[in-house]
């Protein structure tokens, strides 16, 4: 996804050769075979299948836009879209604020900062199913760690009003260290003399943060927002383990729904159509964000 960040690498040409040679194609061939067979091909096929009624029984035929026309009447799908949007709207701001705060804290030259960084990153190296199992236990109603500390009996995963918050808390704990590392890299790219200049001008800490750190960090913020939104829209593992989309449809997300439709009901056509909907949402958001970013950069540059 770095390609989206504005710092595009300049392409240096290799040794110039005019005559046609086969060698480069031989270097490319092994990868291209895998790429065609397992990436490009399936992507195009997925597009095609979403216009069919392919399922485990019955004959498959082209049905045009029928799958998409059925979507507005599919209440479970509408729930899934709503839940995914809510999950993203809750998770992304939390993650951005917390990971930036963590990065600012642990970017100071003080004792123990490396340990702090390693600690904050450790949850991210654990596998999603372990995270799901661990937090199911922590959020258990009667003997879970969180409720014991709160001195309450909140039915975190069983009550449809709070279940989504449980997924949000789990996800933030799991991935905040990853975003922190991205922000740390961004902070370290800011040249020191910019800060020194601001100090000489008599700027206070808050002014430095608003007028120096945030604008200089804009490319990193852009990248982190893009990555967290993309990942939030594709949330699946934690949900599958912790609630399986329940109770009812309280935590049913888009990818959970794709999984259910395509692989439990084996409606391949409709499942692909929902995956295509996810793609359209993601690409729409990406384009929107790129436009906002470009406008922002122009605004600062002026």
């Amino acid at each position: 996804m770095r390609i989206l960040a504005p710092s595009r690498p300049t392409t240096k040409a290799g040794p110039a050769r005019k005559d046609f040679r086969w060698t480069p194609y031989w270097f490319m061939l092994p990868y291209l075979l895998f790429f065609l067979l397992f990436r490009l091909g399936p992507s195009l096929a997925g597009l095609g299948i979403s216009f069919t009624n392919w399922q485990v029984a019955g004959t498959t035929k082209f049905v045009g836009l029928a799958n998409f026309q059925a979507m507005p009447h599919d209440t479970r799908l509408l729930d899934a879209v709503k839940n995914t949007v809510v999950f993203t709207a809750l998770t992304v701001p939390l993650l951005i604020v917390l990971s930036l705060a963590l990065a600012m804290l642990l970017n100071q030259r003080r004792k123990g900062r490396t340990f702090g960084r390693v600690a904050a990153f450790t949850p991210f190296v654990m596998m999603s199913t372990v995270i799901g199992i661990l937090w199911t236990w922590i959020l258990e109603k009667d003997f879970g760690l969180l409720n014991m500390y709160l001195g309450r009996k909140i039915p975190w995963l069983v009550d449809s009003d709070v279940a989504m918050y449980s997924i949000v808390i789990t996800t933030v704990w799991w991935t905040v260290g990853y975003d922190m590392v991205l922000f740390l890299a961004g902070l370290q790219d800011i040249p020191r003399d910019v800060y020194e200049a601001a100090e000489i001008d008599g700027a206070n800490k808050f002014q430095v943060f608003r007028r120096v750190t945030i604008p200089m960090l804009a490319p990193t913020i852009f990248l982190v927002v893009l990555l967290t939104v993309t990942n939030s829209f594709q949330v699946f593992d934690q949900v599958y383990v912790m609630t399986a989309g329940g109770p009812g449809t309280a935590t049913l997300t888009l990818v959970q729904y794709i999984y259910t439709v395509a692989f439990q009901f084996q409606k391949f056509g409709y499942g692909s159509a929902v995956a295509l909907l996810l793609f359209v949402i993601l690409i729409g958001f990406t384009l929107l964000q790129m436009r906002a970013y470009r406008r922002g950069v122009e605004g600062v540059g002026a």
Partner: protein
Amino acid sequence: MNTNRILGGILWYALLLVVIALSLGPIVWMMSTSFKPEGDIVTINIQWIPKTFTLENYRNVLVQYDMLRWTVNSLIVAIAATVLALLLSSLSGYALARMEFCGRNSIFLLIISMLFIPMQITVVPLFLLFSGFNLVDNYLALILPIGANVTPVFLMRQFFLNIPGELEDAARVDGANDWRIWAWIVMPLARPALTAVAIIVFLSTWNSFFWPLIVTQTDASRTLPVGLAQFMSLRPGMSMSAQAYGKSMAGAVLASIPPILVFFMLQRYFIEGVSKTGLKG
């Protein structure tokens, strides 16, 4: 002035402690629970250190589930996928960065454009493809698609763009062909990039869940994440009793040991790798 510095120091350590406690607390709790006998898991008071240590949970989880098999499956798949991705990406990345050929930029753009396409679009066709060849529940179905990953190609190309050309030129003057230059000059230089790619591919394969969940059906090919998800087949709050969490936590601890070990050993590369690429694999 001095009191300010002391106060700042106290605040720093207090915040640092909060960060460490919140990050590692749940992991310590997972370990703590895994060593408790069933009766102690449901005490009303919080017991961070088990009153009586027991390995019963570990014994139970290993007897009742084929965790060993899942682990071996995960290792085979992750190692094979890493080797495959390293080979394919170092060849294609080198050509894309250092060779001139017709269609180079279009091919690169086509490859990169796949980063925008969520993998959920590809899973149905991939599943139909592998089931068509009777390869569902087979290692190949787990390994081969990783070869098509875009990120390793992108990273290797990026690295090769920035190596100095003199070495290649000198070798060419000495009569070496492209294959020799790639194998004997370029690849040894690329060790840092290869390490970064290896870590990313290994870890993302080791942790991957969605595709293995779809394409594995028995313990013969089931990987660790998919196997572990079965612990939760009884839904929480419905029928899984709190006592049963001892066993789940033992399984979770066992599954976490390899990635955490790798992380602490290669910590430097990790954080560098993430920050340089901003990618997950």
